[in-house]
């Protein structure tokens, strides 16, 4: 079976928040719940870079491991889903999650948080009817043979969704095309600028996806 993953190409993300909006619209999440977010590093600096983050559907998901109700499960496609009928809103999944993906509609005294909500990879969740499923979990585009709307609508195709093998092949091609010697996300040591082979280093930088091949 496929192993569904998200992959955000930070070089391409232009912080347009189209993925955030698409997600909100596709799943009609509650007020205050925003399953996807865009994080920007070094905001306002020349080195500014953005990345779109939601549930990353971990292979070894910490939320699943700490949940006191065991309400999480993994689909055959490697998508991490949860049963809102069993969720008690204790917040443990949020404490464990590396990405801050789980969210709660409330945060009141006596630990009243409501049912946890998170990205479902547009795969819905357990419910009797389609209507109930949409009400509780949002869209089930996977059942219709479609990918998550955030990635489908990404204007620069920075956000990729799909089988891990497929999307990493796409990303690998991009990296090869850009000619970065270390791969997509590694940093370039500033000290290299003073090295004798400075022009070679510059050519290896990944910043310019439009640079023509040598």
């Amino acid at each position, binding site marked *: 079976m496929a192993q569904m993953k998200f992959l955000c190409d*930070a*070089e391409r993300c232009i912080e347009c*928040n189209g993925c*955030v909006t698409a997600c909100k619209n596709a799943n009609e999440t509650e007020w*205050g719940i*925003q399953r996807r*977010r*865009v*994080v*920007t*590093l*070094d*905001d306002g600096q*020349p*080195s500014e*870079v953005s*990345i779109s*983050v939601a549930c990353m559907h971990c292979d070894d998901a*910490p939320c699943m*491991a*700490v*949940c*006191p*109700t*065991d309400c999480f499960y993994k689909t055959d496609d490697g998508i991490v889903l949860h*049963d809102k*009928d*069993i969720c*008690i*809103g*204790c*917040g*443990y999944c*949020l*404490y*464990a*999650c*590396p*990405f*801050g993906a789980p969210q709660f509609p409330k*945060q*009141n*005294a*006596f*630990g*009243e*948080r409501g049912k946890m909500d998170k990205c479902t990879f547009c795969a819905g969740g357990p419910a009797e009817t389609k209507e109930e499923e949409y009400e509780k979990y949002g869209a089930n585009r996977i059942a219709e043979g479609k990918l998550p709307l955030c990635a489908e609508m990404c204007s620069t195709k920075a956000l990729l969704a799909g089988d891990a093998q497929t999307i990493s092949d796409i990303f690998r091609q991009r990296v090869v095309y850009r000619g970065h010697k270390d791969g997509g996300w590694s*940093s*370039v*040591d*500033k000290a290299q*600028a003073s090295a004798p082979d*400075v*022009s070679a*280093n*510059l050519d290896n*930088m*990944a*910043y310019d996806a439009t640079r023509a091949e040598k």
Partner: protein
Amino acid sequence: MHTLMQCLQRLRVLGVILMLAVLTAGLVSTAQAADPDQELNQAVGTINADTWREVKNGENFIDTRHDSTYSLINTSGETWRQIRNDWISPGGLIALGSMLAILVIFYLIVGRNDLDAERTGRKLLRWTALERAMHWTVATLFIVLALTGLNLLYGKFLFRHAFGDAFWANLVSLTKLTHNYVGPVFGILLLLMLAKWLTVNLPKKHDWQWFKQGGGMVGKKHPDAGFANGGEKAWYWILASVGLLVIVSGFVLDFPLFGQTRDNMQWANMFHAVTSLILMAVALGHIYIGTLGTEGALEGMTTGYVDETWAKQHHNLWYEEVKDSAGQPEQQNPPVDDDTATANRPN
């Protein structure tokens, strides 16, 4: 025909402009490449280790989620998961299991601590009605909280598989509600109870001797004890220290209204689990000593009165003080009076 020629001419002009543009762009990019620092500064590559360190500390990034105080990468979550799942969870089972085993073995080998002499029938007021009410309320809430807490830690390994999803969903949501709403009541009552019994539980020199003699198990003579013996005082101070940590950490978890971060909650959760599991293990000992383990102890907390023989054997110093007030309960109960009970309590 005329228009077609015009079009071609325009296209040619456009082509020249485009070529110029491409040439200029080429020149510009050559100029940029000649200034490596400039180009480096504009590259994503300058997101270096220092930047990532800042990001991990929750600095130097912005986030489009309206209430997000989350760092981009929550590294402590995995540590918390490992401590909770790999250490606390099995550790609690080991602690509770070995405590139970020790008590069972102790009961089978040593057996009940019987009264040395016959009961005299004369009764001494040990616990007033208010104290008994407090004790049994706190005890009931403690058991409710312990069972619901254990269900939150271990229930998923048992009940879901045994009784199915629907039963488990109801059970676990009731468990969380009970635990979160009963917890604060327990906390307040425990604090009141600790305040009420503070004076009789202040440590004294003879308590040390009591511990050296293992509460009377070592040596022939029963060690001196006031109203509360060394063991009771130890239980009191465990409740006053570990119990206090349970209350404080529980408060942090139960009222997420003060801007607690995920790290705060992870710490509170670990403290709460460890301290409450310790309390549960010690409470098992307390329950054993108060019921099966000691003849004549339970009636003190149920009826309020203890037999003269029991008082002499277990709390000799207290007995010396109060023996004159002992009455025959079948004839006349001494009136329940808080002041008298407190006055008659040398510790």
